[in-house]
């Protein structure tokens, strides 16, 4: 990040360049020194305690945990201390020292974040593009063969079809139920309790939710006692029990239900806040004009919260593109339920083909890209 600073600052004169380079050099040195000092102390602490209490697994875990956090804190403390010692805010050159220290300090604060984000998010984007032109182990050049394979692959086509289904159904259903729940719970005394309960699945992991719903969809052959709620209801109404998650095409919808169930609370909370933010006057005016509650809802309230609805919709869209755990846990992509994220995982772990897996990951990235561009645009507009 010191480099980006160099390139971002227009080079006006040679002295300017020299001072910028000095700042960059000091920044890197201080950061490295601060990091080295804190890591050294943490490792020393670990070795010492490991020596006193050998092979205690639980203690080990707790220790690594504490030291990891301490090393992180130590970096900020040590590097700032070092900077203050290097350019003390007293003595002969107070003003000059302060200027120099102020040029370095933001980067000390930002350093770890920029390095970690760069390494864990920015670098992988570039590396994935590179990998997508390479063979299974990522070493041999493969040209565009991964892309050609993708274009003809049946599994990929199935995944894209299912992903599109998910993209249409889940955000729409979630926003719809969220809006209904928000509008209704705001009107009753026990609304907050109801909200809490509808919101609760948000805290449940996708795998946990998959277990919960798999139990609902549980299937026993006709004639025996059904222990899955859905089949019990169906047989209770006189129908035949079904193995729901294996029914072609429709099983996709049974998986979507899980995500809708988890996310409706999120949509409800945000839309409820937006509904409460609508100025009272507009509603009062509508009441005086004799509008019915339904008219007020659809013609006055909903149009005023379109922006929030769009936010909820996009947030869930991003989530849907990455949906993985539910499909993996419920069907592992069998019976025509494959989705892109799980297909990518499949090629990564079972196919062991990093080239193809990276290509699929890039497709997911590509689908997210428009939303990403929009977010950046909005932030830039907001900060100016």
């Amino acid at each position, binding site marked *: 990040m010191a480099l980006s600073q160099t390139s971002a600052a227009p080079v006006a004169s040679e002295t300017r360049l020299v001072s910028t380079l000095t700042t960059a050099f000091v920044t890197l040195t201080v950061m490295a020194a601060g990091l080295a000092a804190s890591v050294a102390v943490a490792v020393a602490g670990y070795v010492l305690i490991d020596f006193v209490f050998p092979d205690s697994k639980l203690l080990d875990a707790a220790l690594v945990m504490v030291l990891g956090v301490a090393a992180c804190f130590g970096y900020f403390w040590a590097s700032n201390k070092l900077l203050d010692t290097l350019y003390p805010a007293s003595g002969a050159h107070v003003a000059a020292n302060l200027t120099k220290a102020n040029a370095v300090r933001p980067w000390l604060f930002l350093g770890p974040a920029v390095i970690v984000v760069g390494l864990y998010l920015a670098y992988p984007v570039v590396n994935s593009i590179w990998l997508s032109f390479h063979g299974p182990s990522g070493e041999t050049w493969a040209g565009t063969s991964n892309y050609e394979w993708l274009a003809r692959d049946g599994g990929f086509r199935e995944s894209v079809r299912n992903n599109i289904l998910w993209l249409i159904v889940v955000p729409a259903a979630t926003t719809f139920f969220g809006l209904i729940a928000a509008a209704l719970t705001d009107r009753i005394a026990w609304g907050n309790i109801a909200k809490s309960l509808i919101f609760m699945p948000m805290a449940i992991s996708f795998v946990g939710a998959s277990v919960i719903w798999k139990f609902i969809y549980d299937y026993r052959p006709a004639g025996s006692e059904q222990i899955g*709620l859905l089949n019990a209801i169906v047989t209770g109404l006189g129908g035949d029990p079904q193995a729901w998650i294996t029914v072609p095409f429709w099983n996709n919808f049974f998986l979507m239900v899980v995500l809708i169930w988890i996310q409706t609370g999120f949509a409800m909370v*945000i839309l409820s806040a937006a509904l409460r933010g609508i100025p009272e006057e507009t509603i009062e005016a509508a009441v005086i004009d004799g509008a019915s509650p339904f008219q007020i809802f659809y013609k006055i309230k909903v149009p005023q919260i379109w922006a929030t609805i769009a936010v909820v919709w996009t947030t869930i869209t991003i989530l849907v593109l990455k949906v993985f755990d539910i499909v993996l846990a419920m069907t592992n992509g069998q019976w025509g339920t494959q989705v892109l*994220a799980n297909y990518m995982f499949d090629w990564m772990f079972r196919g062991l083909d990093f080239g193809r897996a990276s290509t699929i990951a890039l497709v997911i990235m590509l689908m997210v890209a428009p939303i990403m561009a929009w977010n950046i645009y909005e932030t830039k507009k907001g900060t100016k």
Partner: protein
Amino acid sequence: MNTVVGTRPALTWAVHIAVFVLVAIWTIPTLGILISSFRDKDQIVTSGWWTALAPAERNIVARAAPPSEAVEENGRWVLRGNVFGEASGSVSAFGISIQRPTEFAPGVTAETRDGETVAVGENGDYIITYPEQPEGERGQRLFVTTLEPPKFTTENYETVLFSEGIGQSFINTLTVTIPATVIPILIAAYAAYALAWMEFPGRALLLATIVGLIVVPLQMALIPLLRLYNDIGVGKSFIGIWLAHTGFGLPLAIYLLRNYMAGLPREILESARVDGASDFEIFRKIILPLSFPALASFAIFQFLWVWNDLLVATVFLGNNEEQLVMTGRLRELLGSRGGNWEILSASAFVAIIVPIVVFFALQRYLVRGLLAGSVKGG
């Protein structure tokens, strides 16, 4: 708003009913798992969890004692015994052929074509009589329908915690979650302060980049990082997954915290600067305490996300006892114990109870964080 509906009682009722239905749909699935996790494992498979409080009806096939053990009494050969063996129960019906397993009421004496008589009492005692001395070692099959009182037990939890490895996975999950929540907060808070209140070239560009990275799909990062970890020797370790979660959580953390910090009053910071406080001191003594609500919001997000994560843990941690986290274990059980609902339901409940407690205890901060993150356009 209430006044609008208050004038129409019918509509008010409709609202109450509609909300009740919604709440029911959203809670019943979890309730099913919770109730099942406390039920006896034989009852789980024979009756739906919604009948947990009613006596469970079970069909058992008992085999009577071998005919050769029959003794002569008053001219007939008689066999006595109990269909439950050592156990006890209450018989609601019995039968002697598989086609009609509930043909007779308890106490009734059934007669076969060979002139045998079979009677099963309510307590399970059976009497079989033969006209002549019978032979053979294979006892008569008796089809018995019993009513068992509902049985609740904590046995399922003992099983999953101590012999299915959920206990160890719980500790592994904690080991992953705590540092993976604290480290990104610390790093993000410093970065957010720099982005909100410090002057340096390239600030707007950096912020825009970070916002852009919020939505980068995780799938993108997996293979490059896996390769990198193997190349530099990090391999599958807790440090590796902490840093991975830190990296994936940072953009959102920085964005949320920067928005919050930028909204703090400028006067406080400036008066502290005038008093000669350095940025480091201002951050630690003023900004950090004032930002507590935002820090708490993000902490809850990150905690829930890391605790519930399956993908990152599967990729960056091993499949062994020391590293398998709870979501991974649950997924494994779904594969290997697909039909054992007593194991699955108890395991699932252990896995979801911590986030649910955190969720209900700190809901206020969670909602605030959601609103800050979403309504402002993230």
